[in-house]
């Protein structure tokens, strides 16, 4: 039991339970399993994106271009669908993954081969990818009536009681969990964040691993692009504008340290769920949606303050100890 309490995820889960409890006092139907399933489905895209961002942040990098990647890939897929409705949806998803992979690989290449800090690279590609969306679309929108019914309904189809979108999220979570805990690359990603120098001596190719995490976050961005467009059935240049910071916020609330090396799949998922619950709850308990931004901002600050207490490694600040002695 004591060990159990040490995990940040336990506290986050408790926080979410308290949050749901509080909301239920104002709106009794909220904790209903059917409603919670709905909340999970609504948060699926954010959860997937947060996982992609997590692997990047773990290696002491950051990917600010995810939302722009989502926007670009979503537009490409939507235009493909509008022009060739016969392309089956699974193939479109593969195309989305590949387009996202290319965009992520560009980020990764610049970080790996040219050693440019990731925040600079992705700050640049953030504007480039969104601008490229405008170029490929000519500024036009792709509307619901231009998309094929399959394109829109694929993720809404119910399978064993859950929509396909939820299943995709569960599959991605399971894949990330296995990759992070059971594979060499997962260990390498953690190791690089904890101590890049020691990782080199341990035989890990730091640059190549960073390239791989950017490829992963790119593929995730591409996948989320299709899911986002088919969910909100509009593809435009404005899609997910500024969403990159929501993704990072979900990671931060989930206890992933921006300094790298600390974080888990469970944390990222719960962090995203936390934000998802807030955005779902505000309308039903009659709080103006304009409050959402300030509430998630406060949640981020609170989460950082709480996380920092657990993260403070011993022996780092020698001076303070000397003062105390």
């Amino acid at each position, binding site marked *: 039991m004591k060990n159990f309490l040490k995990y940040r995820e336990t506290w986050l889960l408790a926080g979410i339970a308290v949050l749901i409890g509080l909301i239920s006092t104002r709106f009794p139907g909220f904790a209903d399993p059917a409603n919670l399933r709905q909340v999970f489905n609504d948060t699926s895209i954010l959860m997937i994106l947060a996982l992609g961002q997590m692997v990047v942040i773990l290696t002491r990098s*950051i990917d*600010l271009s995810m939302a722009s990647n989502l926007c670009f890939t979503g537009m490409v897929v939507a235009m493909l669908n509008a022009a060739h409705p016969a392309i089956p949806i699974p193939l479109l998803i593969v195309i989305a993954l590949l387009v996202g992979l290319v965009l992520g690989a560009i980020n990764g290449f*610049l970080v790996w*081969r*040219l*050693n*440019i*800090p990731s*925040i*600079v*690279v992705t*700050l*640049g*590609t*953030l*504007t*480039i990818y*969104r*601008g*490229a969306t*405008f*170029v490929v679309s000519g*500024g036009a929108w792709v509307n619901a009536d231009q998309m094929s019914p399959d394109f829109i309904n694929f993720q809404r189809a119910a399978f064993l009681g859950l929509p396909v979108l939820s299943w995709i999220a569960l599959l991605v979570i399971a894949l990330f969990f296995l990759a992070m805990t059971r594979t060499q690359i997962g260990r390498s990603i953690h190791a690089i964040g904890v101590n890049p120098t020691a990782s080199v001596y341990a035989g890990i190719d730091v640059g190549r691993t960073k390239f791989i995490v950017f490829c992963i976050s790119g593929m995730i961005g591409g996948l989320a692009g299709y899911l986002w467009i088919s969910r909100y059935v509009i593809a435009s*240049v404005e899609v997910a504008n*500024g969403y990159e*910071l929501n993704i*990072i*916020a979900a990671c*931060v609330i989930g206890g992933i340290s*921006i*300094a790298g090396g600390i974080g888990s799949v469970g944390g990222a998922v719960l962090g995203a769920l936390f934000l998802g619950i807030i955005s779902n709850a505000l309308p039903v308990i009659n709080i*103006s949606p*304009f*409050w*959402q*931004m*300030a*509430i*998630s*901002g*406060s*949640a*981020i*600050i609170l989460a*950082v*303050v709480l996380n*920092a207490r657990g993260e*403070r490694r011993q022996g780092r600040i020698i*001076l303070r100890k000397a003062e105390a002695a």
Partner: protein
Amino acid sequence: MTDAPHPRHIPDRLDKPLSSAVFSWEALLVIIAVLIFAVNSFASPYFLDPWSLSDLTFNFTEKGLIALAMALLIISGEIDLSVAAIVALASTMMGMAVQVGAGTPVLVAIGIVVGLACGAFNGLLVTRLGLPSIVVTIGTMSLFRGIAFIILGDQAYKGYPESFAFFGQGYVWWVFSFELALFLVAALIYWFVLHGTSFGRRVFAIGNNPVACQFSGVRVGRIKFILFCLTGLMSGIASVLITSRLGSTRPSIAQGYELEAITMVVLGGISILGGAGSILGVVLAAFIMGLVTFGLGLLNVPGIEMSIFIGLLLIIVIALPIVWRRLREGRFA
């Protein structure tokens, strides 16, 4: 060690050969600026008109003011993503004051004080609680703009007094706007503070090695706190200018300015890892971004397509010296 009868002479600054000035980052930026300027003048007959050039400066003065303070902050190894949200909150507060009949001096004071207070809040969280600034300011970014949204919702504040319009629309002399004058004066002040005072040296030192600074008796926390306050202050001033120029306040005002200000700083040759850079570079980068945006605007290139050029410019300018160095050393990829 050999015994030295006299303490060794340590020069204030190292002698630099002329070649280092020619191949400096600033020289690269000047070349780029001249190129863009030349291309623009050929591409559009309207470009070289003094009033066009004057309009051009409005593209970067407000963000440039923020970028000056941001440069110092980034050199010290921190970052502030909440600057645009501070602009929005300060503007909202000024808008509220207008509704109760505040005059121009009061409005300016409110804008500046709100900016300063927001900066101090960031600074306290980062220095007192030892939190990473990138995360703190992502949080306060949502918080500050969120408060603006709570107050305003989908409404807008209007009815700013006529005398208030001077800051964003007035001209000091001929085509020189108040905004441009303020930007240049601020650039001079920041240049002096960073490159001419012991405070500036400490900022560089902190960026290079905060722990060593702490041991050397530099008050790292206090200096970082001051830098956050300065960034808030400049955001407050920028808020006064933008509000005055637009004559209205919406909660979405200045959306995305934080990334543009940071782009200016990085393009200006300030190391995002801290410890290196110059104010001259930032000023040049501000001009370059203004030139690109305005030149492409004259050619009817839509704003969103312009952002591709800004993004490419950022990556290419950063990558160019690295690729060049590797090519010379013959060990590329």
